[in-house]
Every structure is written in structure tokens, then in C-alpha cells.
């Protein structure tokens, strides 16, 4: 009986250890993904600023050309995210 209890305890400790490691891995993955997402936001914004600096549109990001600037942003954001592989 003691042996069975001991085995059960060992299995429990082992499994909780594995779960903790798995959680850590997952959290790490999410963090990396978040960082890349953030990086892609910044990169996409750079392209919007490039268009503004080049004098394309009126330069008012929230003005008449909002949709156009947003389209530039979305294109580069999607492109950036497509190129990302964290596996």
C-alpha cells in the first residue's frame, strides 16, 4: 500500500513538473508572438510615415486619407506577420 502511495506521489510530482514546463514554454511562445506582433505594428507604421514624408496624401493620419493610410498599414502588417515563424 505504501509503495502504491509513493508511486502515485512520484507520478503527481512528475506530471506537475511537466505541466509547469509546458506552461512556461507556451508563455514564452506567446511572449515571442506578442513581441513580433508589436514589431510588425511598428514596421507597418514606418511605411505609413514614409508615405506621409514623401508628400503622398495630406499628411493628416486621421484626416481625409485615413482609409488609404490604413490600407498601407494593413498591407505591411499582414506581410510582416506572414513572414514570421516562431515554431
Amino acid at each position, binding site marked *: 500500500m505504501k509503495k502504491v502511495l509513493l508511486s502515485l506521489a512520484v507520478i503527481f510530482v512528475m506530471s506537475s513538473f511537466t505541466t509547469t514546463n509546458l506552461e512556461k514554454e507556451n508563455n514564452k511562445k506567446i511572449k515571442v508572438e506578442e513581441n513580433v506582433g508589436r514589431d510588425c505594428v511598428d514596421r507597418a507604421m514606418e511605411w*505609413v510615415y514614409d508615405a506621409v514624408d514623401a508628400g*503622398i496624401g495630406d499628411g493628416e493620419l486621421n484626416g481625409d486619407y485615413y*482609409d488609404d*493610410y490604413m490600407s498601407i498599414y494593413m498591407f505591411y502588417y499582414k506581410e510582416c506577420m506572414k513572414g514570421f515563424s516562431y515554431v
Partner: protein
Amino acid sequence: MKKTTLTLVLCLSIIGYSQEKFEGEILYKISLNKPDFSKLEKNTQISKKRKEEVKKAFKSSKSIKATLLFNGNESLYSVKKSMNNEFNKKINFTKIFAGNANVFYVNPKKKEYFYQTTIYGESMLIEMLQKNWKLTQEIKKIGGYTCYKAIDLNSKNHSTIAWYAPEIPLNFGPKKYFGLPGLVLELQDSATLFSAIKIEINTKRIKIKRPSKGKKLTIEEYNELRNKKSLFKNRRKN
């Protein structure tokens, strides 16, 4: 009395007919304004490699075509789809500033002015406001039509200029530019130049499909939504 009534009916029919008789299609060629890279060149925080990448992207943005379909009551403007796959994969700034995948609909009789777009994955119908046009007496010929110059007083530095043809007495034009006493055949704004390269009037029957898919938003509601998302808050520090 009978004669007067008959004449009146005849006149009204002629006016009604002249309004209704205009239907057709305008093909616009749209080109991007020449980009000014002086700010980019001066920015020391941007690498030389990236500067080249930016220049290449703008320079490879070729001119595109768009159509304006219209009849006496309504118009529909959209950018022509390209069959070239490579073209579709790359970014084309001209296409974006010409209206991209959005569809612009105007119906003055029903007071409907909106464009269909996709925002955050959702289809929406966004209200458009008429520009604050100042009509001038300056004229030029476009495609055989005498066109008058109009300036959008709300545009930055009054940079938006339209050339409209009163001979085609319809209030339509490309993208969000409508409300003039004649069809817009050329338009210069701070991003692009729209030039009518083919003017077809009364050569075929035009059927316009009013965009209906999507949630309707007024300008105020759209601005509120944009403010909530507040993506474009900060400017780049040079």
C-alpha cells in the same frame, strides 16, 4: 389653356428626358503624384538599405485604371481589378490612393452618399460628405468637353482641384469627389491625378448595383470607431 398645359407637359418631359438620358461609363487613368524623398534622405535614423527599399516601392507603383458607371440617378466608382497576379501581390500605392478595393456610391435623389469598405474584417458602408467646392471661370478642354475648374476649399492648401463638364449635367465624379454641376473628368488631389481617358455616353445600357452588404455608419460614428482604435496617434520622430 389647353395649349399652355400641353407646352408645360412637353417642357417637363424634355427636362426629365435630358436628366435621364445621360448614362455611361468613364474610364480614368490614375497616377500617383511624384514622391518627394528629401525628408527620407535627411532622416539619419533610417538605414541606407531601407531608404532604397522605400524609394523602390514608390517608384514601382504604376498607374492604374478605374471606372465610373452612371445613369441619371446614381453612380458607382471602383478601381479596375488587375489580372496580373504578381501585380496583386505587391503593394501599389497608386491603387491604394485611388480607392483600393472600396466601392463608392452616389445617389443624389435618394441622398445616399457612401462607400463600401472592410474595416477590421467587417464590411461597412461609410457615409461620404460633399466637398466644399468653389467654382471658378477657368476652363480647359478634356475629351472634347469644355471643363470648368473647381477647388475644394476644405482640402489642405486648397490642393484638390476638379475639372467638370457642365455639358454632362450630372453631379458625379471619381472616389469621394462629387457634388459639382457637371461630371468630373479630371481631378488632382494631394495623392493622385485622375484623368478621364475614355468617355462613353449613351452607347450602352448601364445597370448599377447599389452596394448593400455591411453596417451603415455616419461620419460621426466612423470617427468614433477610429478614435476608439486610435492606431494613428503618434508621429515619427525625425
